[in-house]
């Protein structure tokens, strides 16, 4: 993995709004810049627009606002490059793991990139090594525990050497032990991370910067320390009692 100079803007989002086909407002004028090497938490109540925002970062959803990844404008031409640079991990690993065995799933990205057979194999074993799942190549996803599925899901995007990891609710449904081992794993990956979550313990351990969203808008953006100390802010947005 390559960590480029720290102050490079790796994600630039300007005035992004999005309305779902059923008329539901997903995002209402979001501005967000993220620099290379940052670990950013996106927190907010259910329905705040966190997942909608993440889906814009690799162009699954697109709308009128401007999204730039590594300086590349989000359009048809750059889509392929952007998706290579942004590894998006979905909340439910059952959605992320759609192949009949772990190898095929982790190899899906590299094969789509057009890598040679040897490179694919190398990338797969390296990605499985990073998440500590070597030896699981021939297992089928529906026989894995949730913790294992989450790790494999992370490997499926690490195998293309992304520059940004975008993760939706990494610790949902995990027991504390699997959760902390996953947090340690994420902590060791030297790569820009954007993590949407409700899990404030995770935020405190993993992220230096926190963005609070509510009703499709960013309502606060600052260091994790200052935001998690602001009980009034957390209460106002349903993140504390």
């Amino acid at each position, binding site marked *: 993995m390559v960590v480029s100079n720290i102050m490079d803007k790796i994600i630039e989002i300007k005035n992004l709004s999005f309305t779902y086909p059923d008329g539901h407002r997903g995002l209402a004028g979001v501005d967000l810049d993220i620099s290379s090497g940052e670990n950013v938490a996106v927190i907010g109540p259910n329905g705040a627009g966190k997942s909608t925002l993440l*889906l814009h970062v*690799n162009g*699954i959803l697109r709308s009128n606002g401007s999204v730039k990844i590594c300086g590349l404008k989000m359009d048809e031409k750059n889509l*392929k490059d952007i*998706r*290579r640079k*942004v*590894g*998006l991990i*979905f909340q*439910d690993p*059952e*959605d*992320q793991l*759609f*192949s*009949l*065995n772990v190898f*095929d799933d982790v*190899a*899906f*990205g590299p*094969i*789509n*990139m057009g890598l040679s*057979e040897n490179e*694919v194999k190398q990338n797969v074993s390296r990605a499985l090594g990073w998440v500590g799942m070597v030896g699981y190549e*021939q297992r*089928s*996803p*529906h*026989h894995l525990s949730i913790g294992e599925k989450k790790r494999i899901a992370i490997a*499926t*995007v690490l195998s*293309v050497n992304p520059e940004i990891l975008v993760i939706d609710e990494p610790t949902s449904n995990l027991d504390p032990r699997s959760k902390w081992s996953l947090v340690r794993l994420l902590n060791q990956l030297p790569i820009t991370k954007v993590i949407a979550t409700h899990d404030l313990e995770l935020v405190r351990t993993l992220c230096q910067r926190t963005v609070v969203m509510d009703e499709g808008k960013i309502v606060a953006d600052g260091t994790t320390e200052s935001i998690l100390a602001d009980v009034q802010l957390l209460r106002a947005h349903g993140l504390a009692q």
Partner: protein
Amino acid sequence: MKHSFIDEYSHLNSFVHRLDPRTKLITSLVFILAVVITPGSAWQLFAAYFGIAVIMFALSKLPPSYVLKRSLVIFPFVLLIAVFIPFFKEGQVAGSYNIWLWQVSVTYTALLILANVVVKAWLSILVLILLSSTTKLDDLLNGLSQLGVPRVMILIVSFMYRYIFVLADEVMRIKQARDSRNFGGNWLHHIKTIGNMLGTLFIRSYERAERVYAAMLSRGFEGQMRTMHRLRFQQADAYFGAIFSVVLVLSYVIWL
């Protein structure tokens, strides 16, 4: 939740397991074809086929009770189709019965045909059980794809197999939620609930399909499914194919 699955014994390690899926696919098809075109009177040939199947099962280390149990599954289907054959064939009468207003007679030729249908179906299913129990489904699909089966078909089967367990879990959860709130009611009410359950299940599957597709797009999917062809023919495949053909042809020459 854990489910049993069709390739339950595919992780065993035996000569048959190690054969290339394509070898197994082709020989299985040839075997079934041979069984189907064999005339019903050539009972020695059927015995030979059965012998071949038994040898293969012995080599595969599959538990015989498992194989027998699974092979029984087809009998309801075969019997449903074949049960009327004995009544519609002319020839020497084996038995005659009066059922209310009709007189029904069964002939020897017809019984022979019935027995023949059952034997052929059973032999064919035995081979298919051998194939599906000694090959992992993903290897089987990989083999099919390398034999030129259209990718769309492979994809449909592959997604079906991947998500059928997820769906079964979902059904189980919906059912539990219903049962824990079920306080009687008449059958009409029950049917309504089942209708709602089906609707919910359909919508959930549809939404899951959209999320899976988004996950595929995120990893560079562009409408062309590509997987690595990792199958290699081994020497064992050549030997097995040769021996299989010789045995089959010899049986034909000797007993037909």
